């Protein structure tokens, strides 16, 4: 079993995050290795990803089935490999964060981090990268706490993913994909929030 759990925080209100997350077409391209996806019903879709194992890449096709749809706080899903013996599950969880309850000092006006243009000082970025790398190795968990602006509504987005390779080679495949899980979770959640932050900066929700 390979798993990852990644939490990040944004100034964007939960309803706005949910509004974005509930439409997979808006964030599909943020999935690591994304190639295509096809909605087959309200709860079922088929995704094709390119899995990159360093020396080779391989096209993987998954069937994703929504098992819980509880807006604006949670969506859960299962996944099943169609061309590889894999199964798994995952969830997006969106929570409201009271102003000043998380991250930096009360009343901090520091902006939420946008991965494409991080504003932290270089040594801090280095430390953060080291910590996240360690977290990857020991448990596949990471959290990026961003202080919400004073008096602003804010959200905490958590993305969880677990994949269980099947077949005789499962332990080997597990070892191969394990280092990829947390970066995949980080990429998806961070890019979603980056897009929302861009929309906010432009004066409205990203649609």
């Amino acid at each position: 079993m390979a798993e990852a759990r990644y939490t990040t925080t944004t100034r964007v209100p939960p309803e706005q995050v949910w509004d974005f997350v509930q439409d997979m077409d808006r964030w599909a391209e943020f999935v690591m290795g994304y190639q295509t996806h096809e909605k087959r019903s309200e709860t079922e879709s088929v995704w094709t990803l390119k899995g990159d194992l360093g020396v080779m890449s391989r096209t993987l096709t998954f069937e994703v089935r929504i098992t819980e749809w509880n807006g604006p706080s949670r969506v859960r899903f299962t996944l099943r490999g169609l061309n590889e013996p894999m199964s798994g599950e995952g969830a997006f969880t969106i929570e409201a964060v009271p102003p000043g309850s998380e991250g930096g000092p009360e009343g901090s006006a520091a902006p939420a981090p946008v991965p494409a243009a991080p504003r932290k000082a270089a040594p801090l970025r280095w430390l953060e990268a080291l910590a996240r790398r360690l977290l990857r190795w020991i448990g596949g968990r990471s959290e990026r706490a961003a202080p919400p602006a004073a008096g602003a509504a804010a959200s905490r987005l958590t993305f969880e993913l677990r994949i269980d390779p099947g077949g005789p080679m499962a332990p080997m495949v597990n070892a191969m994909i394990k280092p990829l899980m947390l970066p995949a979770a980080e990429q998806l959640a961070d890019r979603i929030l980056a897009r929302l932050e861009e929309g906010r900066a432009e004066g409205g929700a990203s649609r």
Partner: protein
Amino acid sequence: MASAPAPTAPPTRWDQEVDLVCVGSGLGGISAAIAARDRGLSVLVLEKAPRLGGVSGFGGGEVFVPNNHKMRELGIADSDEAGRAYFQFLSAGFADPTLQATLLAHMKPAIEYMEKEAGVRWIAVEGLPDYYYADAPGSHPGGRYLSVDLFDGRSLGEWQARTYPMTPHVPPGALHREMYAWGGLACVTQWDYELIGQRLANDQRSFGPGLMGWFVKAAMVDRGIPALVSAPARSLVVDGGAVVGVRAEHEGRDLYVRARKGVVLAVGGYDWNRELARQYEAMPDWNSACPPYLHGDHLVMAGELGAAIAAVPPTDLALFYGYHIPGEESDGHPLYRSSWECGCPHALWVNRAGQRFCDESFYKDYQPRLRTWDGQRQTMPNLPPFLIFDQNYRDRYPLGSFMPGQPLPSELVVQADTPRELAEKLGIDPDGLERTLERFNEHARRGEDPDFGKGSRPWSVRLTGDHSYPNPCVGPVERPPFYGVRLVPVSVGINSHGLRTDEHARVLHVRGRPIPGLYAVGNSAALLDLGGGYQSGTSNMRAITWGWIAGRHAAGA
């Protein structure tokens, strides 16, 4: 590519100056670098790919050395005379006697040097016979192949991420002896994947990546030899007829490196240069299992200086047949896998007429037969070959990385309920396939193949045989549904043409004299030391040996 006169005149100012430049970072280039550095030379390694290791880091990692010191440690008897007889058999009269004698005289010192001075931990692969054991003169039942102990990729420091941690061609993290103890390739579903997974998690490397790990560590980490990746050499710099440097590209600009003692060309062959492959290998189609950086740069750069190109017959080298699984890529190019499925029970090959034409379990038998030319019809009747197997095969053995029970991609594998239907779908003569299966199955039920002797070679049995069968390579193809795959050539980088070299690995001019300051080793040098035949592990062995010879010669030894 930046344009410049070729060959290039010395620049007004060199970007770097060293004694020896090794172009290519496979076993040949790195061995030359180690040998030269240990003799006091300053060395720079230039690598075209974004990772060090070349084809050597992507392959199986076997090194074939008769009468090697690890055999002796295990008490396995062998002799230099037997080794010579075997190489003479392999050469089939096409070897250059001087080059072969030089190779055989230096292979053991080079291999032992890399253990004593460079820390490479060799292991003899017990019980893996020579290809032609037991009927070839001097052939041996097992121990001549060397592999390496597990290599810890974490010890490479900055080079860990810039070397190959695994190869897509073999499940990673297993030692050769374990692979065979676990049943070989036919029993790949029964390997110890818990152990392999633990090793992968700790970057414990084996096969080619492990082999190159030891060499890169010895060169780049232990000796501090500098290397540049993504730095293709574009031309040789010449002064007064001698090679005095290299013009390479690095980070978007020309890089002029002076080489006071010489340049070693160790860039492999030309697998990814379709034009050269078509001209030199005489096959109507061509694909490669190697990283996509083999463009024949050595032939171009040295050719500009008048270097002689020499050849051995392409008929009996190491050209496999295989397939591309849709969606699989390596370095942005389609990944081709050689097919070993044909060596398992319940599988065979046929041509378009639906006829068998070879011992499918022994690629040295099928390779020349694929080149059969029908002079009456101006065709190659055995191309393309088709892999045919049945549900008994599917229940037991993988196809590439697709395990039993896993759906096979319809773009690659054709499925049908009867042999006739399968033949029609594949474009094979249905009557021919039915007749072939009838005869094959009649004998296969008894574990026999009187037509081509499938499973008669100990090497084949060891590699792909299922030892639960009376004949580990033979089982009837009779249980529906039936499956078929159209196969294509898959080269492993061992080409028939290369630069002509002398006993010091110096490149020879078409007039027969050495070109001062220019060496070629590994698969960049013509295989005149081997001649007409091939045995797995000889490519790695000659890369190490000639690299070692070149590095020492450049240092004045």
